[in-house]
């Protein structure tokens, strides 16, 4: 039982490149979230999903897209990476409303 797994753990991109971050959970949780955490800062919500096939925008959605085609996976895409997207990205899963969040170990992304 791995909980929440994020891949990759580290990535370096050049400006304009695209990539997809994968979040996988084996807990059958309904809700999933993508957050970014800038150096020394808090967690800002990018996008989230309350169930398979659904997605919604969070606080800072611009420049990102997401998909939740399968309940266990939540993908975060960067179509054209920018230096401002350099950050640590955390995925989290939540069984349902008013339940605790389980976080993955994070993806450190640098955009040069």
């Amino acid at each position, binding site marked *: 039982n791995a909980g929440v797994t994020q891949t990759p753990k580290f990535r370096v991109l050049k400006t304009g490149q695209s990539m997809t971050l994968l979040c996988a959970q084996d807990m059958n949780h309904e809700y999933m979230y993508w957050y970014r955490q800038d150096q020394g800062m808090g967690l800002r919500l990018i996008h989230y999903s309350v169930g398979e096939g659904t997605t*919604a925008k969070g606080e800072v959605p611009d420049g990102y897209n997401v998909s939740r085609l399968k309940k266990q996976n939540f993908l975060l895409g960067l179509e054209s990476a920018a230096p401002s997207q350099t950050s640590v990205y955390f995925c989290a899963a939540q069984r349902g409303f008013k339940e605790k969040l*389980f976080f993955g170990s994070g993806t450190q992304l640098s955009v040069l």
Partner: protein
Amino acid sequence: GQQVMQIPQYQHVQEGEDFTTYCNSSTTLSNIQWYKQRPGGHPVFLIQLVKSGEVKKQKRLTFQFGEAKKNSSLHITATQTTDVGTYFCAGQGIRDDMRFGAGTRLTVKP
């Protein structure tokens, strides 16, 4: 949209001193949760408060939820070096998403 504010941003204490962090939401919350993140790690759930005026304790940690369900606090009594880390509050409002405060980074001098 819903905003969650947290103060102070940093707190440096001598081991044995108390520590408090405060959280305020711009809207009424359905529940508030507290997380701890150790340096280099990911946030880990500590506790959830749901009821107006609720108070919960975990050993040296005391958590409170305001009567109006818009504010919360975490108090640590007699800090230890193991308490080092960043403490985040997170609120879920009428909408479904969970918003985090900016966190309070606690350092403890032995």
